[in-house]
């Protein structure tokens, strides 16, 4: 847009809507959580003693902020358990995200190669699991993975194994759960990036002497980069904070930050510490988001 006409009322309204949404449902709750994180734990209802109050005057706020203690943050940062939980979450989420990419890419690629009239149906199939409750699907995995579950029964009766494989309540089960649950979030952006590619580009590469494999690496993959990045983020970010899957499929030794957060809130009733964990998690996840943002900018700019 070269000519910058003043924004009409309608356009201002349209632009304001998402901002308002973010303000109400992201920024305001976040400020609230931050406020709790800076409070002191207490045996009361709710279980914290606010340090900052929204009813205080501005002058009081200034004073209080100057004398704030960040002891909950200190605790979370210095305690090895939290550090271990953060690292373990990042590691599990990273492994799961890469596995998801490895499984989703061939699927999405095959979908774009299918006859045109099949593609809409294939996209529907890719998101079909969403028609069933997420919880029910995770419970179904318990039935599959348990020592006396379907997979072990099948393998035993086929004589492939003599002892049940212990899959349930392990990190492997958590990885399976995450990969399974988030696969559609990887398939869809990959599919849309791959489907946009002009088939003539691959023909041109092949015409210029590239083997099919080389053409794939030099043409298909680089052009799918926006889709790959979007898919990685869409899987990685929620996977880091995932709580339900490690809680249901993981063992007692499966350390993930979402679980730690939950137990701080509900088992220990230590809301300030739990809030600090949440705030730090958010800060942590801003890093990949900012990398993505940079990539987008350099990707569109020559």
């Amino acid at each position, binding site marked *: 847009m070269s000519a910058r006409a003043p924004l009409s009322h309608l356009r201002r309204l349209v632009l304001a809507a998402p901002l308002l949404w973010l303000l109400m449902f992201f920024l305001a709750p976040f400020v609230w959580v931050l406020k709790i994180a800076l409070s002191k734990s207490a045996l009361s209802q709710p279980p914290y003693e606010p340090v900052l109050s929204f009813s205080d005057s501005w002058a009081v706020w200034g004073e209080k902020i100057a004398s704030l203690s960040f002891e909950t943050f200190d605790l979370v940062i210095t305690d090895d358990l939290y550090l271990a939980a953060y690292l373990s979450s990042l590691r599990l989420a990273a492994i799961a995200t890469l596995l998801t990419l490895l499984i989703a890419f061939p699927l999405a690629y095959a979908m774009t190669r299918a006859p045109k009239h099949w593609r809409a149906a294939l996209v529907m199939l890719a998101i079909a699991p969403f028609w069933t409750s997420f919880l029910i699907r995770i419970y179904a995995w318990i039935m599959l993975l348990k020592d006396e579950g379907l997979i072990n029964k099948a393998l035993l009766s086929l004589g492939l194994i003599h002892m049940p494989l212990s899959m349930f309540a392990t990190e492997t089960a958590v990885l399976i759960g995450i990969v399974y649950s988030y696969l559609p979030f990887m398939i869809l952006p990959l599919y849309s990036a791959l489907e946009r590619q002009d088939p*003539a580009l691959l*023909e041109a*590469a*092949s*015409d*210029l*002497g590239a083997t099919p494999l080389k053409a794939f690496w*030099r043409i298909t993959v680089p052009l799918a980069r926006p889709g790959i990045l979007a898919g990685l983020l869409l899987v990685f970010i929620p996977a880091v904070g995932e709580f339900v899957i490690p809680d249901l499929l993981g063992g007692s030794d499966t350390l993930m930050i979402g679980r730690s957060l939950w137990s701080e809130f509900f088992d220990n009733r230590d809301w300030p510490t739990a809030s600090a964990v949440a705030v730090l998690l958010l800060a942590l996840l801003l890093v990949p988001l900012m990398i993505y943002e940079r990539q987008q900018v350099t990707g569109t700019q020559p």
Partner: protein
Amino acid sequence: MSGAPLLRLERISKSYGGTPAVQDLSLDIPANEFFALLGPSGCGKTTLMRLIAGFETPDTGRILLDGIDITHLPPHLRPVNMMFQSYALFPHMSVEQNIAFGLKQEGCARQEVVARVADMLRLVQMADLGKRRPDQLSGGQRQRVALARALIKRPKLLLLDEPLAALDRKLRHDTQFELMQAQRETGTSFVVVTHDQDEAMVMAHRMAVMRSGSIDQIGSPREVYEEPQTRHVAGFVGETNFFDGRVMQYMPGGVEIETTKGLRLEAACRHHPAIGARVTISIRPEHLRLSAPGVFSTNGGIGEIVDHVFREGLSSFRVRLETGDIVHVRQGQGEGVHDWARGARVFVSFAPERARALVV
């Protein structure tokens, strides 16, 4: 042309789901030739090109390049390159990277790649635009990058799929001459696929006029224009007027026919139709003469000027004959050419040796 042709197609057939796209087609193309495959859409010219490039495999027949059977060779192993109609430039690579792509696949030494890319950029007059991305180029510049990319491996044969279709009229005109120059400078045989007879006429040394999967006629543009073998060729290449009729009698070097509208016309004929056989006379607009209706008027008919258009130094007339036929007449300026007004009564005639009676 000495010895074996560069490219030989031997009785190629290809059909898609039972619908034949190319039927029992044979064609030889020598080295260093600018060849055009001309035909309406759906005539099989694109399929033929994709068969040569290796994107399709013929159902029957053989493709020989320099005497070597390449019928079943995949595209990346064929010493043939192609310029795509959409240009198919790699959007994530710079102009230089696009052009270098083919050489890099060969494992060419880095220094040689750089030198040959620079040569190519000079050939297509893009020397200072090598760092740009395809989306920063104009249509004409993209076309040149596509040409450079397809030529850098010094293919023996370059296929060009509607190379000018995406350009505007003015640019198309200039680009035609650039393509001809590139062909001369590289000595590569160019095979251009086009539906535009003008392009083929301007650029090609020889052309093949295709219809429904086979070739109607092969020849130089002049031969095809002046001696069309079929009604389809006469109608597709250049403008013409048709008179359908039956052979009445043989004349020296031709036949006399009576048209369905009752005109008696004489025309040269290269075939040997029987008396009474159905033929079509094709006569180009520039070979029709206009004169005032008179007593000695022969080989034509009387009509009335319906339209008169002056364009590019030529006068074009549409004349409705008394028989109801509409004919198109084109005259140059000067030497005793009368400027007929609309509504004027004229006698339209032609010299029999200028017209061709074609067997239908």
